[in-house]
Each structure stands twice: as C-alpha cells, then as structure tokens.
C-alpha cells in the first residue's frame, strides 16, 4: 500500500513539473530571455528598432535557480518557524516563498530592459514605457506559477517519507538545495526545448520551412504582428498554443521516467515488504530500466529524424 501512495506522489510531481516548465517557457518568451535574446539584442545594432522586451537577467537556468532558491529559502525558514504545526505549515510556506521569489525575479527583469536599451543609445533604440510597465506583471505572474510548482516539487521530495509512509523515501538534500537543482533543470529544459518555438517560429517567421538562417540576416527579426507592432506579450499567446505545452511535456516526461524507474526499482528490490529491502537489487533494476528507456527514446528520435529528412529533403539554399 505505501508503494502505491509513493507512485501517486510521483505522478503529482510529474504533473507539477509539466505545469512548471510550461509556464517557465512562456515566461521566458514574454521577456525574450535566453537564446532568442541574442537576436533581440542584435536587431537595433542592425537598424531594426523594435518594441520587444529585452530581459537579459542571465541564461534561463540561472535566473530560475535564483527565484526558485529564494522561494525555497523563504519557505524553509517559514517551515522552521511552524515546525510544531507539522506538514500543514506548507500551505502557508510554499505560496509565500514563491511570491517573494517571483517578486525578486520581477525586480531583476525590470533592471534588464532599461539597462540593455540604455546601452543601445547610439543605435537610436528608445525605451518605450508602455512596453516596460506592461510586461512586468505578466512576467511576475507566469514566474509565480513556475516557482510555486518547483517549490512544491522540492517540498514533496523532501518530505516524501512522511507523506507516502515509506521510510527512507525522503530526499536527503535540504529544500533550498533541491530548489536550486530543480530551478536550474527547469530553466535548462525551457531553454533547450522551448526557445526553438519562439526563435525560429516567431522571431524569424518569414523564412521558408527547413531553411537555415544566414549570418547576413541576423538581427532581422519580425517586428510586426498580425495587426500593428509586435511586443513580447504577443509571443506568449502564440507559444502557449504549442511551444509551451511541448516544453512542459518534455520536462514532465523526464521527471516521470526518472521517478518511475526509481519506484519500480524500489518495488523489485523488496521495498514494500518490511525488512526485506535490498538496495543493490533496487539500484540495479532502476539503472537497467533507465538504460532501456534511453535506448527506446534514441531509436524513436532517430526514426523521426529519418522520416523528416526523407520527407523534406536537405537544405537547398536561397
């Protein structure tokens, strides 16, 4: 029975990871952070004055590590104060921590836009105040959704032993450190998977499908939307249709496979039977299942790539 509840908590973690990474990707698109930022930064230098929000805090991984770690630290401090209340204190601690974390993130992104645009003085890029103010609240709210999910994941992992009733299932790492690791991971997945849907599908919308981008055209981003001048907020609504959920799915699947193989390994190692647990067998099964999952994924990816190459052919140039 405890193993079933362990499995249920694992599914909760995977679901939270899906939500977290979806909102993380949309938030980074609102401020054009990470990879597309290089083109947003380059555009005024090439003479293309734009109305995008330039949020160059750092890479996505680090900026999410910052907001998630601050959230985890505040949550940890609140949990320490209400230790006598028990797990119920998390109802207060996690949202308050996430609110502080996203507040810090909003402050950091506000300094970015003005800093980068002021450094574009000689290219005649003005600071549009409506762009500046209008993007701060969407950034804070999307960030809050991502950070609250990550803090909840870290909290569940920290207290899994108490929550599921399986002794020894709790993660040995403290809450802020888990938040740091998960923040880095969610940022990394959001950057690697999500940026493609912003960069190549939105910032460079006018190029033929499958074509590479020559260096000559760098900085030549799409500055006009369906109606009027495009801002970064329009990008979020575009990416919410496919890019965000796809990124969330990537991260959710990673978390799901990772936890699934661990739980199956624990089950086969005799964790459910009192006194019969064998860590070596559990670890062997866990690693074995992980290798099988990796091989299946590699074969699937290779098949998809071959199919796409056969269907669309090589890059032919302009």
């Amino acid at each position: 029975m405890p193993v079933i509840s362990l499995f249920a908590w694992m599914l909760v973690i995977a679901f939270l990871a899906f939500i977290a990474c979806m909102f993380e990707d949309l938030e980074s698109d609102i401020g054009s952070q990470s990879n597309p930022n290089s083109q947003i930064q380059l555009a005024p230098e090439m003479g293309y004055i734009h109305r995008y929000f330039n949020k160059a805090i750092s890479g996505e991984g680090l900026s999410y590590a910052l907001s998630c770690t601050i959230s985890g630290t505040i949550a940890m401090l609140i949990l320490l104060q209400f230790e006598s209340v028990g797990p119920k204190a998390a109802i207060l601690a996690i949202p308050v921590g996430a609110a502080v974390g996203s507040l810090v993130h909003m402050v950091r992104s506000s300094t970015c836009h003005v800093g980068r645009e002021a450094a574009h003085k000689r290219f005649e890029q003005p600071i549009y105040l409506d762009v500046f103010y209008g993007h701060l609240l969407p950034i804070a709210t999307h960030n809050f959704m991502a950070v609250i999910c990550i803090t909840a994941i870290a909290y569940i992992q920290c207290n899994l032993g108490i929550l599921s009733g399986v002794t020894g299932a709790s993660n040995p790492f403290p809450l802020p450190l888990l938040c740091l690791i998960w923040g880095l991971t969610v940022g990394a997945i959001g950057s690697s998977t999500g940026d493609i849907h912003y960069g190549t599908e939105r910032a460079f919308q006018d190029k033929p499908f499958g074509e590479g981008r020559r260096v000559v055209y760098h900085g030549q981003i799409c500055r006009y939307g369906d109606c009027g001048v495009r801002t970064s907020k329009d990008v979020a609504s575009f990416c919410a249709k496919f890019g965000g959920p796809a990124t969330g799915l990537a991260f959710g699947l990673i978390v799901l496979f990772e936890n699934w193989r661990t739980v199956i390994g624990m089950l086969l190692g005799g964790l459910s039977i009192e006194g019969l647990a064998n860590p070596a067998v559990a670890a062997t099964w866990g690693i074995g299942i992980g290798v099988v999952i990796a091989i299946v994924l590699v074969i699937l990816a290779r098949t998809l790539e071959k199919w796409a190459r056969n269907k669309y052919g090589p890059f032919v140039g302009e």
Partner: protein
Amino acid sequence: MGEEEAKQAKQEEKEEKAKPKEEFRLSFDYFNESRLGIFALTICVLIAIFPGLPAFIKGIGIMIVFAWGADSVRKTARYGLGTGVPSIGVLAMGFGIIGGITGIAVASMSFGTLVVGGVEIAFGVLAGVALLALLGFVSGNLANGDKFINMKIPGLERGMTELGIAGTLAVLIEISIVVGTYDPAKVLPNVINNGLIAAIFIISAFGMLQPYNTCLGADERRARTLLMSIEIGGIASIILGIATTLTLSAVQGVPLIVLGAVVWVVFYRAYMKACMDEAYAVKGTGLIKTLGG
C-alpha cells in the same frame, strides 16, 4: 573627413555634458578598477577576519565585494564574451564555495583563530583567500597560456585571480553574517545542512554576473553597471537579514534588513534614473522607426 570631425566634436560635447552629471556618483570615477580592487580587498579582509562584528557592517562588506566582483567580471568579459558572462559569475562563486569551506576549516584549527581580549580574530580564513587567489591565477594562466587553451583574453589572469578572492570573501562574509562565527559546529547545521548555502551561492553569483550581463551593449558605462551590483547587495542583505533574524537573533538581523531596504531603494532609483537619462529617448508609447519600406 568633415563628418568624422563633426562626430568627434559631438562626442567631445557629449563627454563635456556627461561630466557634471557624474559628480554625484563621484565614487566610481575615483575608484577606478585598481583603486576599487585595493579598497575592497582591504575592507573585506578586515570584515572577514572579525566574525564578531555587527551584521549590518558585514552587510556593507558584501555590497563592496559584489561591486568588486562585478567589476572583475566586467574586466574579464569585456572582450566579447557575450553569453559567457553568467558563466564567469558562477565560476567566481564556485571558487568562492571552495575557498570559503577551506578558510573555515583552517580557521577552526588551533592556530587559525586568535582571541585577543575577548575579540575573535580568524586569521585562518585568509588561507582560503590565498589558496583561491593562487587557483584563480593558475586557471587564468591555463586558459590564456600559449601551451594550453590559448584564449588570449587581455587581463584574464588578473580577472580570474580577483574573482577567486572576491568569491571567497563573499562566501565568508555571508556565512559570518548568518552564523556570527566560523565554528564548524555551528556553520554546518545553520548554513550547509539546512541548504542556506544554495541561497548564498546564487545571490552572490547574481551580484557579480548580473550587472555586466544586463548592461551589456555598445554604450555600457562602468559607473552605471556597478550601481546595480550594490542594488543586488541590498536584496542579498534583506534575504540574509530574514535568515539571520529567524536563526541567529533579531538584534543582528533587523538592522541588516533595514540597511538592505534603504540601500535597495536608493540604488535601484539611482540605477533606473541613470538608465532613463542616458537612453536615446524615453517615450510613453509610440510606433517604431521603419527602415527600407
């Protein structure tokens, strides 16, 4: 030729105009790269070896060390290290964690800490600072040397050395804020086991990496960039102040929170004002200038 002369004249005019503006920020014009380094090293070593100082003085120390670290990142990354800027800041804090732990380990030995008239002087932490200065110099040489990676970045050796020292001092001062001593029996449960080290790591990394990464561009100005590092020092003070209030004592923590809040408001305002003043234009709204039809 005429155009060029006109441009030069314009630039000179601009410089002349900019001079009276910078008067109220005299500090960063006086504290050029070398002076800031010497000043920060002296003050922060003094703060680091006296763990008994009040927390708000240590709070001023972390602001100074952030400014120095951000200046070193700027120095290292100025030669076209676009996306590498955050990595340099994280590298500094990686140095810092190693140096901080080494320093605390040496300070906990019998010869590491002197007690003169009841005042604790932890000379041992300087061993960590010296080790990381050496490590930074060696890694800078490895990256720049002809026989090794040969990156040929001017001033990389000096930048890496400074980053090692600044990172170590930041970690040491922040640990001494939260714990009030370098005794490993108190440092381990209050900083490392409860995970506060993660917050120390990431906030200090941002204090060093974010200013230059955010202000990067053709018209970046050093004084403006460094204003932001002190502003992040304010945020770090607030967060460490909350941690100190809840784990050590309110007498130490509350003045630190007040200091952090005041510094944050003053320097955030100064930074935003500097950016808005120096931007090409600040418009409420407007359409973009269209090139080529």
